């Protein structure tokens, strides 16, 4: 037993399982939270019937989805249709591996942390586009193509936003990026004298990457049925929903690390609070921001979305990189 506890491999496996458990477990309370927030923003109570104030509602929903028939349309590409939900979900689990929750609680401390996160995060699009194509349905295909166009465009913007942060920390390592923001909230990258513009770009691109309102045109239930998952039902549909929540959680965690100072405390005299508490609080705040936004703004039109991405966010990102470069350089 002691030998097991001492071995690196055991800890790596244990931490990986923990990351997977977090990604699979968190969406349940978050769906409840989202529906509650939706309810209260619309001046109604939200789910109330299953359990105390409806806390067991997500479990009931999950059970329902898992017990439903798994329909595969005729003419669908069976292998890709079955594999697509996993292709959409797994990258976000892989992202979570690289995000440091505190100075000790991380699965892997990579030298190329940020690059890894951006690279892997771009892969979930394959699940969406393949799911859309394999369904052999025109709405699904259109949703998949829209998703691909949207995610490629906004990945560029997100990359530019992150480059600003990397330049501030002079490192791709997540730990270094957090350490560069130590010493109170004035040193966080979100402050105007640091990377406020980058934070703005990052969040807008994050909404687009996670396919959340106001940028959920790949789903676009108004015009596309349900977009790329029109033909999905039961468990596979649940996996797509899970992937959406996993995307939201990992982008929130990423924003907390890159812009909100990760596990560092906002003011000096609160240093005694464990780092992981701060990290969780910041991530929760970002998740709340996602949900708050969802029930505030309407969906963008497709061309407006592309205009915003290419003509506004990317030039702004380049400008931000240039300005950051001017301030960071050693004369």
């Amino acid at each position, binding site marked *: 037993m002691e030998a097991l506890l001492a071995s690196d491999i055991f800890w790596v496996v244990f931490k990986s399982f923990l990351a997977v458990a977090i990604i699979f477990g968190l969406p349940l309370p978050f769906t409840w939270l989202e529906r509650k927030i939706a309810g209260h923003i619309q001046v109604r109570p939200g789910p109330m019937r299953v359990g105390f104030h409806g806390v067991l509602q997500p479990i009931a929903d999950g059970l329902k989805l898992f017990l439903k028939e798994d329909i595969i349309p005729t003419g669908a590409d069976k*292998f890709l249709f079955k594999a697509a939900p996993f292709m959409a979900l797994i990258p976000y689990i892989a992202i979570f591996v690289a995000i440091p929750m505190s100075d000790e609680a991380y699965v892997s401390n990579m030298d190329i942390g940020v690059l*890894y996160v951006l690279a*892997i995060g771009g*892969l979930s699009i394959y699940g969406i586009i*393949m799911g859309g194509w394999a369904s052999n349905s025109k709405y699904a295909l259109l949703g998949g*193509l829209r998703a691909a166009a949207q995610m490629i465009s906004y990945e560029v913007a997100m990359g530019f936003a992150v480059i600003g942060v990397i330049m501030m920390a002079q490192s791709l390592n997540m730990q270094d990026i957090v350490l560069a923001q130590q010493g109170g909230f004035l040193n966080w990258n979100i402050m105007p004298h640091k990377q406020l513009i980058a934070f703005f770009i990052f969040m807008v691109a994050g909404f687009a990457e996670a396919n959340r309102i106001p940028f959920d045109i790949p789903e676009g239930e108004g015009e596309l049925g349900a977009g790329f998952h029109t033909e999905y039902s039961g468990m596979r549909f649940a996996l797509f929903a899970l992937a959406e929540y996993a995307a939201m959680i990992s982008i929130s965690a990423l924003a907390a690390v890159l812009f909100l100072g990760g596990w560092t405390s906002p003011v000096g005299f609160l240093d005694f609070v464990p780092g992981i508490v701060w990290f969780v609080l910041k991530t929760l705040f970002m998740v709340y921001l996602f949900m708050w936004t969802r029930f505030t703004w309407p969906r963008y039109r497709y061309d407006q979305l592309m205009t915003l991405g290419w003509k506004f966010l990317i030039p702004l990102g380049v400008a931000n990189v240039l300005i950051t470069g001017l301030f960071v350089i050693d004369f």
Partner: protein
Amino acid sequence: MEYLFFTLFSSIAVISALLVITFRNPVHSVVSLIVCFFQVACLFVLLRSPFLAGAQIFVYVGAIMIFFVFAVFLMDFKSSMAKERFGKMTVYALPVAVLMFLEVLMLIVKGPFAKMGAQPADVQKMMDLGQSTKAIGMVMFTKYLLPFEIISVVLLVGFVGAVVLTVKEKKGE
């Protein structure tokens, strides 16, 4: 341990590469090529070049393969199915290619590389260097600055060319 991972990654890479050229449906080919590139990225990690592995996933898997997916989707699907799996040239091409591979194999096993080996002291240094992104940046932005700039111009020209080629001309202009 490292052998285990090497065997895993390389065998998956080779198998998926073979699948790329045997699938009739181009979409399936694209998917297996993605798998293959991913495994190559893993091999880069084993070669102590994490930055390159990240770049491989970012550029090849995240960008180039999306182009392919788009191209296949933009074309008519029925016509994108291969009419026959292999062309007429298969009979001649296969022996030539296998012969070429055997030749390269001889070169690797018997040739100068086998004798060269690796200098252990250097390797330790290189492992430290390869793991830091800084080292690559230092070389790229000092010694190879001009090629770097030229590459960026090539990229720009390539993308402008792609746009020019695909845009449909509007009538009356």
